[in-house]
């Protein structure tokens, strides 16, 4: 695997730290007038999502990580893996539970997702920003409350639970923001 010098560090560069793929989110050089330069680096561990900080002596080398984002269609979950397909090549990829942990409640069959591949395997999945899902369970609300002032929890077909206005009924379809987990509106 190719190595990368700190001189090539920039935001978005993917490298391996302690065997895990990381993405640089901030890189500042510390260059005293006379003295060794260092790079203050903030990076996100692409598997755990945690942001870490380390100070690298300039000129140090790290191992490059073969990480790429690709748009794939979500196919189905077989109980163990979540299957995705590249609609152009029909190549299929299977993602483990760890890769979809935070987002599985937003995965809808046929939806296009941005999948991060590390050495060809999915390590994280980003669902579409907005998804349409059916309400499968919620308390019956007051019909007259159309102002949406109040709210109640609703369970959607994928298992996601969101706060919805009181007028939303079982069987209705709603649009949700997958990044914030918020209800946006009724789907037409």
């Amino acid at each position, binding site marked *: 695997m190719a190595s990368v010098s700190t001189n090539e560090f920039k935001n978005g560069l993917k490298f391996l730290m302690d065997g895990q793929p990381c993405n640089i989110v901030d890189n*500042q*050089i510390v260059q005293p007038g006379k*003295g060794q330069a*260092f790079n203050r680096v903030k990076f996100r561990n692409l598997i755990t999502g945690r942001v870490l900080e380390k100070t690298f*002596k300039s000129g140090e080398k790290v191992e490059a990580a073969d990480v790429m984002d690709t748009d794939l269609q979500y196919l189905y979950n077989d109980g163990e893996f979540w299957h995705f397909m590249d609609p152009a090549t029909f190549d299929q990829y299977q993602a483990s539970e760890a890769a979809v942990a935070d987002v599985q409640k937003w995965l809808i069959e046929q939806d296009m997702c941005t999948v991060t591949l590390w050495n060809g395997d999915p390590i994280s999945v980003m669902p579409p920003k907005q998804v349409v899902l059916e309400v499968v369970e919620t308390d019956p609300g007051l019909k007259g409350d159309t102002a949406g002032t109040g709210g109640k929890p609703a369970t959607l077909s994928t298992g996601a639970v969101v706060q919805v206005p009181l007028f939303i009924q079982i069987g209705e379809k709603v649009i949700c923001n997958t990044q914030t987990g918020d209800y946006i509106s009724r789907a037409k």
Partner: protein
Amino acid sequence: MQNDLTLEHAKRNWRPCAKIETLQKRSQWLRQLRAFFYAREVMEVDTPMLSQSATPDRHLDSLKTAVRLPGQSSTHIYYLHTSPEYPMKRLLCAGSGDIFYLGKVFRNGDLSPRHQVEFTMLEWYRLGFSLAEMMQETAEVIQVVLGNLPIEVLTYQQAFLQYANLANIHNATAAECRACLRAFNLPEVVGVEADDKALWEQLVLTEVIEPQLGVDRITCLSHYPAREAALAQISTGNPQEALRFEVFVHGMELANGYQELQEAGATHRRFQQSLQQRQADGVETVPLDNRLLAGLTDAGLPACSGVALGVDRLFSLAIGAHQLSEVMTFSIENA
């Protein structure tokens, strides 16, 4: 970035980095800085930016270019200066008296909110000035732009005690420096040998101490370790210390000064040490300025102190800018 010279990209990037009103201030400040030295009868010198030799300093990377001269079949490598130090010292050897340079210098590879590859430096030399006198004058120059901030003089050793709880940094161990970085909860350091005391000490300085220096004042940090003397004299009282200082305002290094080393032999030895360090680290070596060494030998450098000050940094502090480009016409990114 640099390579995108398309018209489409240029339409978004042709404007100056600084606001015009900032450039008006900059113009006034440049005039006031010059006036400061003209009033004190210090002669302005515009030494060449191009030189056949370069600084051997291990951590400075000089830009270079190929110069074509008539009557010669091949081009010659010339380096762009990282500071006007060597030609200014040759002028001092030749009897110039007090001199200053206010102009551009270049440092390859340096780019951050506090660094630019091409930047403006103010460098001056004062005959007969002690380190203390030079620190005082440097602070007064800074006051020209930043107003009457109080001036504080602190030795390197005092600063380690006061801001990092290290009682005697010159005798401290690498382990004590590492423990200090941990005590201040700083991020883990990658690539430094556990016993490399000089580097751990540098990290305590840059990561722990410097951010605390120059808060609402001008802090002159004096008596750097002898191994970082560069071309400063070693203290006669304490061979662990060099007569070198740096000046900080709001945690930002603004200036670096020396009571200047005069002996040609010692200067040559320090140059050689720097070259050896370059070789050991696999960094390209550079031709030494033998004309400087000849001047030091033939005529001798008069007793003097010198200092170099980062002008863009000074101006960026004056307007509270977050990066140097905010006080520059065009930065390396849209030059």
